[in-house]
């Protein structure tokens, strides 16, 4: 398989079909708006803004245990749960829409609103099942290990510590192994139209003797994530915090422009990552004989 070709193809396709970034951009904007709304409802905004003013006047800020305790009331925690739930539903649907768009692109179908929503709705429950199963596969053994360690700690502290060290190594190895074997689950589900369980089984099978290729694709995706974190996510977060704590209109406007700019670039990078995963899967599938 030709990783370079797959990457160039993903990049060129994204340049040609910029609409692919739309669902990701929208989901990020919604996420920021929800966060903004939440801090306004709960009073965190007031605390942050007063604290920033205090720091500007030479103080040490007002974020301390007492103030934080005052804000985290039962009502605010309930709001938090509601926001997380609403946010998760929206983000989940939009990520399904985003993968649907990428699938349409990979399968050379027309990228229009109707096709996109149709495909997203078709895969919605399958994708949900896939995510739940993936979570269980990753986390169930980890949870079991944690329970065993706690029990061992109760029996003997020394045995508990020793088993903690060993099981940490085992758990990390397990997560890396299973992650690499199940690396292609989403492209398999969307491109090959398989059920959640079949996608997992197929990914596990297909990656078995080709972990090197999977590792290379994974390494490139890690590289994209690192670049994105250094050059985009960090300044985006900085801009967002500066916007929240800003006390001048001009600065707030400048921050909004910066946030929007960073959001567009971040969406582009994230879309590129997903597109690369799908195109490299297509290439991988072509070269791998089962």
């Amino acid at each position, binding site marked *: 398989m030709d990783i*370079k070709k797959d990457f160039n193809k993903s990049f060129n396709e994204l340049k040609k079909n910029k609409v692919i970034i739309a669902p990701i951009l929208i989901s990020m904007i919604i996420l920021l708006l929800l966060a903004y709304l939440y801090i306004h409802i709960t009073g965190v905004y007031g605390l942050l803004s007063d604290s920033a003013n205090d720091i500007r006047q030479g103080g040490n800020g007002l974020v301390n245990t007492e103030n934080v305790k005052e804000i985290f009331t039962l009502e605010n925690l309930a709001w938090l749960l509601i926001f997380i739930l609403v946010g998760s539903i929206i983000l989940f649907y939009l990520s399904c829409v985003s993968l649907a768009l990428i699938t349409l692109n990979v399968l050379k179908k027309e990228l229009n609103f109707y096709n996109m929503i149709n495909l997203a709705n078709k895969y919605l429950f399958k994708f949900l099942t896939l995510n739940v199963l993936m979570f269980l596969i990753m986390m169930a053994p980890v949870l079991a290990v944690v329970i065993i360690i706690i029990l061992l700690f109760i029996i003997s502290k020394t045995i508990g510590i020793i088993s903690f060290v060993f099981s940490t190594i085992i758990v990390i190895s397990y997560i890396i192994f299973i992650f690499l074997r199940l690396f292609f689950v989403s492209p398999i589900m969307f491109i090959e139209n398989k059920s959640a369980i079949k996608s997992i089984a197929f990914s596990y099978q297909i990656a078995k003797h080709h972990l090197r290729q999977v590792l290379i694709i994974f390494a490139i995706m890690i*590289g994209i994530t690192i670049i994105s974190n250094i050059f985009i996510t960090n300044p985006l977060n900085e801009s967002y915090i*500066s916007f929240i704590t800003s006390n001048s209109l001009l*600065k707030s406007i400048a921050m909004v422009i*910066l946030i929007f700019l960073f959001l567009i670039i971040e969406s582009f990078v994230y879309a590129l990552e997903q597109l690369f995963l799908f195109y490299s899967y297509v290439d991988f599938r072509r070269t791998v004989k089962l």
Partner: protein
Amino acid sequence: MKYIQESLKAGFDLNTTKKTLLDNGYPEDYIEEAANYVTGSINVSKRDNTETKEIEKSIYEDDMKKIEYAGFWIRLSASMWDGIILGIPTIAIAALLVWITKIQPLGSLVVLALLIVTIYMEGIKGGTPGKLILGLKIENKNGDYIGLGGALLRFIGRILSELILFIGYLMIAWDKRKQGLHDKIAGTYVIKTKERKGLFILGLILFLIPLILLPTLVAIGSLAYFGVLAPSKFIPESCTIGPGFSCDEFNLDSAGVLRVVLRNGLGENVESIQVKVENDCNPRLREWKDGEAITFSCFVTLKEPGSVFNQPFTISYNTLDGDSKIKQGVIRTKYP
């Protein structure tokens, strides 16, 4: 291809021919393609005509010019030039923007712009300014510019090269075609198009200067910190005092009298002054006007002539508001 054909005609083994080409720096995939073409092991008629022509053309061009890959040191020198041409101005602009606007993320935006410029230059112009001024060019196996996608992939590869403790960069030193990990990932080659020895050496010197200077400064600093190279050892006579007062002159005579001329620079008059070096000095408990210099005489115990006299002293005084304050200083000289 011509070479393979002629070698085979001359009775040489195909593998030996391939090895000779490989040793001469031709890319392995080129050789394979050309060998396949010559021996007819792939169905030529089914191949895309343009692609075949491209391979023929690139092999022919390689025959014409001997490819000279850029090695580790020249690329290091190019990085130094990049630091000077792109890095320093970027940092300066970012710092200036943040300083003027007080908007921290603007600095990050400038750095992001540098990243975009780097990718653009590598993809479309064939190299960063540092590489271009040293006559280097980044190209793919067909000898073309690598394009924006290729440059982005190469940049991602660079992050991976750094992640494995820069081994990805060091690979350039021993690789046959001088490819680092990032070059291998992106399928790129850095070749020499011109000879720019002067700039190459200057770049290396610029790299070596901080490399030599930094450990030297660290060594001097450490020696000074642990007292081996303490400046006081080389400056035997000194009289230091905290802000607000200055020590204009001092002298220790053979009778054991230390005379120190101190000046009030507090910006206000003070009273009830008392200077103490071992014992109280004269005059004492008087007023001290702002800017006034007073000579204080103090009796000290004499020790072996030539040995170091290193004595702390204090100035205690009252401000006109009634606050009592103390300043500390040190006098260092030799016993007469």
